[in-house]
C-alpha cells in the first residue's frame, strides 16, 4: 500500500472488483491484518473447568503472562470442547474486577479491614492454631480411652480444591489432632 490513494477505499472501489464498496474495498488495515488472539498466545495450557463436577476440558491461552482466553478443549472426551455459561465465564472469574489480591486482616472488635503481609499472616495463624489446639485438647475420654485430639480448631473446605490440597489438609490436621475437618461434600 505504498500509494496513499490505494489506502482510500473509494479509490479501491474504482480500481478493484468491489465496485459498490460493500466488500473487500471497505476493509480497514486493522481488519485486513486481523487474526484470532489465540494464535498469538505464548502458550496454551490444558486445564479443567473449576465449576461443576462434569469436569469439562479447558484450554487456557496465555500471552505476556496474561490469560487472554479460556475456551473448551475439543480433545476432552467428556465435554468435546463445549462449555456451559459458567465454564465459558472462567476468564471473567479469574480476572474479575472484584477479585482480592491482598491479605486482609480484621482485628477483634475492629470495624475495618487492615493490611497484613502474607508471611506475617501465616505466622499469626500458626500461633493461633497452636494455642487453640492446646485449649481444645482432649487426651482421653471419661473412660480413659485415648482420644488424642483437639476440638479447638475446625475446618470446612470447598469442593473446588485439588485432591493434592485436600490430601495435605487432611494429613496436616490429622497429625495435629484436628478432627472437625469437613467439606462441602457434606452439604
Amino acid at each position, binding site marked *: 500500500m505504498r500509494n496513499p490513494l490505494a489506502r*482510500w*477505499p*473509494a479509490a479501491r*472501489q474504482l480500481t478493484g472488483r468491489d465496485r*459498490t*464498496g*460493500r466488500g473487500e*474495498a*471497505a476493509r480497514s488495515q486493522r481488519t485486513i491484518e486481523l487474526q484470532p488472539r489465540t494464535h498469538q498466545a505464548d502458550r496454551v495450557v490444558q486445564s479443567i473447568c473449576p465449576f461443576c463436577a462434569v469436569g469439562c476440558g479447558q484450554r487456557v491461552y496465555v500471552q505476556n503472562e496474561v490469560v487472554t482466553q479460556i475456551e473448551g478443549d475439543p480433545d476432552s472426551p467428556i465435554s468435546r470442547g463445549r462449555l456451559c455459561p459458567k465454564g465459558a465465564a472462567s476468564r471473567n472469574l479469574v480476572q474479575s474486577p472484584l477479585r482480592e489480591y491482598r491479605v486482609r486482616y480484621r482485628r477483634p472488635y475492629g470495624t475495618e479491614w487492615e493490611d497484613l503481609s502474607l508471611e506475617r499472616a501465616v505466622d499469626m495463624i500458626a500461633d493461633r492454631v497452636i494455642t487453640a489446639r492446646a485449649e481444645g485438647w482432649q487426651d482421653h475420654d471419661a473412660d480413659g480411652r485415648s482420644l488424642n485430639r483437639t476440638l479447638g480448631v475446625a475446618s470446612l473446605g470447598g469442593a473446588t480444591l485439588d485432591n493434592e490440597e485436600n490430601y495435605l489438609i487432611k494429613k496436616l490436621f490429622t497429625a495435629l489432632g484436628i478432627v472437625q475437618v469437613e467439606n462441602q461434600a457434606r452439604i
Partner: protein
Amino acid sequence: MTAQTTAEGGYYGRPVLKEPVWKPEVAVYFWLGGLAGISAVLGFAARLSGNDRLARSAWFTAFAALLPCPPLLIVDLGRPERFYNMLRVLKPTSPMSMGTWVLTAFGGVTAAAAAGELLGGIFATLGRVAEGAAALLGLPLATYTAVLLADTSVPVWHHARHHLPFVFAGSATASAGAAGAILTPSQHSRPARLAAIFGALLELGAAFAMERRLGPDARHYHEGAAARPAQAARALTGAGAALMTLGGRRPVAMAAGVLLLAGSLAERFAVLRAGPSSARATADGGTVRG
C-alpha cells in the same frame, strides 16, 4: 398474572425493530438541506429569468442554510471525530453516503457561486456555471433525505417511501420560496411566493396521500411524539400558504414566509419523530412488511 405477555405481544412486548437514534439536529439538517437545495434551484431559475434580486436572496439563503449543515450532521454522530469516514467510500446503496457526497459537492459549487458573486469578472461567469451545478445538486439535496428515511425497516418511513420524497420536496420548496419572499422586496418576490404556495400545496397533498397509504401506521402522526409537530406542520404550512396568497405587501409576505419556514421545520420533526414510535410498535412482528 403470569409471564405470558408473549401470547398477545410477541416477545414480552419487545419491538422487533430498534428505534432510530437520530437527534433533533437531524431534523434541522433535513430542513436546512431542503431549504438550501431548493433555494439554489430558485436562485438559478431566477437568474435565468433575469430576476437577479431574487436570485441574490436565494443564493444567500442557499449559502446561509448550507453552512450549519456539516456541524449539525457531525454532532449527531456517535464518534464525531470520525466524520471524515463518510468520504471513505462512495456507496450507491447508501442514501446517506450519496447524500454526503451530494452535500459535499453542493457545498463546493455553492461556495464557488458565492465567490463568483463577490469577485465578479471572469469569476462571475464561472460562478454562473457553478450556480447551474448547484441547482442541479440542490434537487437531490432536498429529496435524498426522504430516501434516507424510507430506506429503513421502519414501517412509517418505509411504507411511505413513494410519498416521502414529495413531502420533502414540497416542504423544501415551500421553505425556499418562503425565504425568498422574506428576503426579497415584493416587486421581485412573486416567483418566490408562488413557489412557496406551490411547495406548501405539494407538501400538504403529499402528506395527505402518505397518511392514506400508511393506513393504520399513520397513527404515528396523530399520537405520540410526532403528533404535535405534525399538527403544527399542517397548521403552519396551511396558514402560511393561505397568507402567502395575500403576499403582495412585504410584511404579509414576511409573516407568511415565517409561518411556512416554521411549518417546513415542523414537518421534518414530525417525520423524524414518527420513526421511533413506529419502530416501537413492531412488537407483534407482523407490521414489518414490504
